[in-house]
Structure formats: C-alpha cells, structure tokens
C-alpha cells in the first residue's frame, strides 16, 4: 500500500480502564464510624487509582482484576476513499476504538495517524439545547461537529430541506417531538463534508422511511470518495455501505476481509459450512424435560446432506427431536437468515397429521421443503426452535445451528438466465413471463 493512499493508520492501539471500585460495607456502628473518619484519605486514593496505575498493572495479560483492557493491540490501515465497517459483540472494544480515533479519550499504548480533515459522529444532536430554536441548534451542532459558520450558512437551506421541518425551524427544540429532533440532528450530520468520517451506530434513528433516506445519503457519501469508518450492529447497514469489514473480538482484530466474508464469519464462526449438527450426548443437547433437540440437517431431495445446494432444486431442512413428556402440542419452526443478517422468512410446522394434536413421547423428524428457484445465491443460516403451544413456551432455540450455500451452476435454466454479473435480491424466484407483440408499422 502506497503511503500517500492511507487515510487511517492504527498501530498496536491499546486502552486500559479501571473498573470495579468496590464499596466496603460494615455491619458495626464502630467500624462504620472509624471508616467514616478515615474515608477522605481512602476516597482520595480510590479516585486517584482511576487514572494512576501501578508498575505491575502495565501488562495487558496479567493485571489486577479491577483493570480491563477493552483494546489489546489493534492494528489496521484504511485506504483513502475506503468505506470500512467495524463489527463485534457488545463490549468487544468497537466503541472504545472509535472514541480513541475521534480523540475523545487517549489510548494507553500504540499510535494512530489520521490523514485528512476528520469529523466524528458518536451520536446525533450533540450539544442540542432545548431552549434554542431549530435554526440556532443547527449552527451550534454544526460547529460542534467541526463545520465553519460560513459552511453552515451555505448549506443551511439544504439541511432544513433534508430534515423536513421547515415550518418549525424557528421554534425552540424543546417543543419538537423526539422524531423531529432526531431528523434535524441527523440532517446536520448528513451535511458534514470531511475527508474522513467516523460514525457510530447513529443510523438507528427516526422512522423507517427517514432511516432509508439516511442510508441513501450515507451511500452517496461513500461514493463521493470519502473515507468512512462505520461502527455498527446493523449487519444490513454494514453490508450495504461497506466493502471491507473488520471484526473485533475481545479487544483484538479477529477478521479483516471483504464485507460478506466477515459478516458470515461473525454470524457463524465455525466456518459456516456445517449442513448437519447433531448432539450425541442427550444431556448436552438443547431442550429440557419436555423435549430435546437431536439433530438439524440440510439435505437435497435425494437425502444427501451437503452445504452446496443447487439453486434450481428443492432444499430439505429437518430437525430431529425427542419428546420426553407426552401430551404437549408442539410447534417445530425454522427461521432463515442471509449473510447480511437479514431475516428472510420464518416457517412453522403446519403438517396436518400433528397440527394441534398432543404428541406422545418418541422421536420425531420434522422436515420443511424450500422449493427450488426460491432462495437467492449465497450463504443462508438456519435458526431452529421448538415451542409448546399450551401455553406458548420455547423449549429450545438454536440460532445459526446449520447453514448452507445456494449456488447457481450458470447453465442458463435458473432465474438469472444467461446474465453473468451481479444479480441482486434476497430471493430468486423463477417467474413466468409472457410477451405481447405488435409488429411495427
């Protein structure tokens, strides 16, 4: 990578916090009194320890228990114009990383370089004051986010237009509904024009329509060749906006690769290639004394268990479970997710043979058939669950239990026909087309 092409360079960044300042409790009045008298000194030491660390506490591996390391040596580079997503579970260190890059907090070790004008957006509407009018808050919030006054003057009409609250722009913000506030706040943020934009989970605002509008705007930002660093839980937004994704786990970079690969890995860390999952030891199987899961499988119509499924053929998904307590009405079900984390559909067992009927103890295999020419190409994840309906109680629920990949063999008889390029959509139905022709004059 050429040095001049780098927008963000992060080298071995780590961060240490002290948590768990314990409050001592005493049960005798005397001890409490003595403690009360001694407490100023103790309190001083306690609060000082929040930012003064001992020599033995400088190692991220063996520190005292009250110290946590949200980041333990994170290294990566972001090229100019790249839109990069950061994903990870809660507490993985994503937000800490973002806070360090936005200079809200300092790293404990390591170094980062940011080349270009940066704006960071850790929340929308920072500094909004309820007593000020919409207009005044636009200026205040805009300058807080790093815009110049002249810049806001220039974009003001555009911002108000985007927020769709022209009528109330001179009303104090405290009279706004929360939706209006968020719309105005996001509009300001959307009109930032930095070279590098760092954003946290801020798209989860407003109603669905406005969210779409924001996503579109964000996409434009990406297309304008700006570097975007996007931290999110929303796999859909990440996969839509980012080409490259970094998965952070336990304060470290776990995977750094193309978006769909990282998201697949995140959703199903075992590699996402298991078409079958069985529990040989019933004691460890999901479930309880009413029913226990035994296996989940993905098969072809010929009964072959495999991960790569022909897009034209039926796909059979089955769950095998043992009913241990007779007399319950049971509802086996599946949910299907694609590799963007979007739930495609859910399906319940409606087989008339057992529907609304109490089941005796024994072993059952419930199979759902997904017709051919239905799912789009790509990896699909299966969630399996079993519910008793009297009352509705989940007996087991296994997310990402198996997965399979729908593939098109490009023989021209699937829904994509002879089209050789990217083919969008979350489903790929083979529709009946007809043509009416009128000969030209």
């Amino acid at each position, binding site marked *: 990578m050429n040095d001049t092409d780098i927008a963000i360079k992060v080298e071995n960044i780590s961060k240490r916090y002290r948590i768990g300042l314990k409050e001592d409790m005493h049960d005798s009045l005397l001890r409490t009194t003595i403690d009360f008298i001694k407490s100023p000194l103790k309190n001083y030491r306690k609060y000082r320890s929040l930012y003064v660390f001992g020599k033995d506490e400088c190692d991220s591996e063996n520190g005292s228990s009250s110290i946590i390391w949200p980041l333990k040596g994170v290294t990566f580079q972001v090229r100019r114009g790249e839109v990069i997503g950061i994903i990870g579970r809660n507490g993985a260190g994503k937000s800490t990383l973002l806070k360090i890059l936005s200079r*809200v907090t300092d790293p404990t070790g390591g170094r980062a*370089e940011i080349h270009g004008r940066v704006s960071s957006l850790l929340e929308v509407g920072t500094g909004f004051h309820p007593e000020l009018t919409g207009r005044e808050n636009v200026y205040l919030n805009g300058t807080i986010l790093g815009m110049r006054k002249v810049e806001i003057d220039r974009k003001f009409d555009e911002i108000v237009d985007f927020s769709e609250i022209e009528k109330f722009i001179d009303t104090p913000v405290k009279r706004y509904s929360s939706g209006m506030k968020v719309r105005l706040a996001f509009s300001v943020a959307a009109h930032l024009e930095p070279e590098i934009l760092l954003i946290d989970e801020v798209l989860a605002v407003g109603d669905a329509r406005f969210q779409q509008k924001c996503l579109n705007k964000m996409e434009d930002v990406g297309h304008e060749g700006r570097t975007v660093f996007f931290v999110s839980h929303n796999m859909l937004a990440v996969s839509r906006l980012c080409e490259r994704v970094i998965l952070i786990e336990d304060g470290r970079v776990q995977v750094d690769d193309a978006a769909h690969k990282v998201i697949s890995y995140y959703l199903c860390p075992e590699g996402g290639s298991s078409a079958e999952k069985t529990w040989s030891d019933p004691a460890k199987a999901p479930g309880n004394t009413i029913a226990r899961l035994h296996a989940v499988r993905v098969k072809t119509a010929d009964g072959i268990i495999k991960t790569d499924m022909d897009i034209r053929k039926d796909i059979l998904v089955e769950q095998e479970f043992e009913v241990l307590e007779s007399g319950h009405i049971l509802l086996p079900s599946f949910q299907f997710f694609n590799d963007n984390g979007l739930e495609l559909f859910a399906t319940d067992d409606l087989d008339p043979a057992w529907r609304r009927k109490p089941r005796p103890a024994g072993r059952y295999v419930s199979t759902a058939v997904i017709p051919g020419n239905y799912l789009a190409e790509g990896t699909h994840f299966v969630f399996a669950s079993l519910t008793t309906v009297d009352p509705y109680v989940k007996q087991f629920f296994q997310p990402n239990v198996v997965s399979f990949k729908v593939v098109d063999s490009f023989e021209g008889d699937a829904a994509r026909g002879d089209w050789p390029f990217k083919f969008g959509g979350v489903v790929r139905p083979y529709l009946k087309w007809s043509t009416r022709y009128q000969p030209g004059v």
Partner: protein
Amino acid sequence: MTLLNNKLSGQNAETRTGGNSVTIIEPASGWKLVDFKELREYRDLFYFLVWREIKVLYAQTILGLSWAILQPLIQIAIFSIVFGKVAKVPTDGTPYILFTTISIIPWTYMSQAMTQSSQSLLQGHAMLDKIYFPRLLFPITPVLARLVDFSISMVIIFIVMAYYLVHPTWNLLFLPLFLCMMIIIPTGIGMWLSALSIRFRDVKHAMPFVVRMLIYSAPIVYSASSIPEKYRIIYSFNPIVGVIEGFRACLLGTPMPWQYIWPGVLTSLLLLLTGAFYFKRMERIFVDVI
C-alpha cells in the same frame, strides 16, 4: 514547458496527500502547553458556545436580560442598608451606595464566572464524552458569556456615579488593566476547579460557600484601609483586592493604590498559568474518570 508541467504535477501530489492536516493519536505524557493554533481553528464553535450560554441563561424568563441589572441592584440595596446604615462601615468619605456599587458589579461578575466555570466540565459531560474539541473551551465559555451581564450592569455604576456627580478622571485609562484582571481571575480559578471537579465532586459542594466567604476576603463591603498595616502585603496577594481597589480608584479618581494591586496582578497571572498547565495535564483523563 516541462518545468511548468513538473510544477503542476508537484502541486497536485501535494493537494492529494492532504499533508496539511495529519492527526497523530498517541498516549499523552507529561506537561503540555496550550495549543493556541488549535483554539483559533475552533473559534466559530467558541463563538456559538458563548452565544448559547448567553441565550440560554435567561430563556423563558419574563424579565430577560433585566435580571443582569436586578440581581446586583438588590445586592447593593441590601449591603447599603446592612453595612452602610446599620453597621456604618467606614468608607474614607465616599457615600456608601457609591462605594459598594463599584465593588459589587465586578464582584458579581467574578463570582458568577468562577462558579459556572468550575462546573462547566461536569455540566458539559454529555458533550465531553461524545466529541472532541479543545477542552479549554468549557471553562472559558462562561467567563466570556458573563461579560454580557457585566456590561449591562455597568449601567448601574454610571447612573450612581452621575447621581453623586462624580467626574471621570484620567485614572479611567487604567480601567482596561483591571478589566483584564477581572477576567483572568475566574479563568484561572475556573480551569483549576473544573479539572479538579472531574476527579472530586467535592468542588461542587464547596463552591457556594467558598464564594460567599471570598466576598469578605476583599474590600467589597468594607474599605481596604481598615486592614492593619502589617497584614497589608499578605492581604494584597488576594487578586480580588487589586481588582476592587483598582475599580474604585479608576472610577472615583482617588490615587491609584498600587501597593494593593501589584501583588494581586502576580497572583492572578500565576493562577492563569498554573490553571492552564493543570488543566492540560488532566485533560487526557477527563473522559475516563468522569
């Protein structure tokens, strides 16, 4: 021609790398100086923060900015009755209302500015946690915003002076010095206390009565000449003494009491410098500790 081409491409390369703005993020260590260049870059934000502070203070009040006059006016009335009429505090011949008006106006400014400045970081912690801008803007904003109230309340001084037929003298030329001092003191104290209050909330609880006690540490209700000669030097190191005595001398045209002023100038500059250093030193831990 080739030369020109080279020049052009060279320029292009420079703009493309954007070498003008590189942000380096590293663990902070040791003492840092105030980055004035950075503060300048954020002047628009500074302007809006000050303006927000002014605008919000009297929002949804009936009297609005009149409060800036009413507050010191009531204080003047009370002090004139209690210390002027009842206790009959000696004022070296100046009418008590005139005497106390000139001291209460700058004092009101300083006490409000230092109180608000010392709480600025805690109050702004929602912003502190979410966005970076020079942290120094927090304690400095209220110090500047309160100047608006101060300017308005100066009207009271002029009215009272006109009533007692006090003529302006050349001493007035020294007033900017004391205005500066009056701004520097709460800035220094504000930087110290706002940074301290992040670590120890005690500041918040101690502040109201410290301010109430400070009023008696300076010649606001009494005259500095009532302080015994041998304590005068120590007394004058309180910078508030210098500001108040300076204001009186400038406005009333009495001889400039420099012996009260120089020690205070020293202290206020010291407060400002140490405050800035301490603030910059603590800056990096604000978000982690708050």
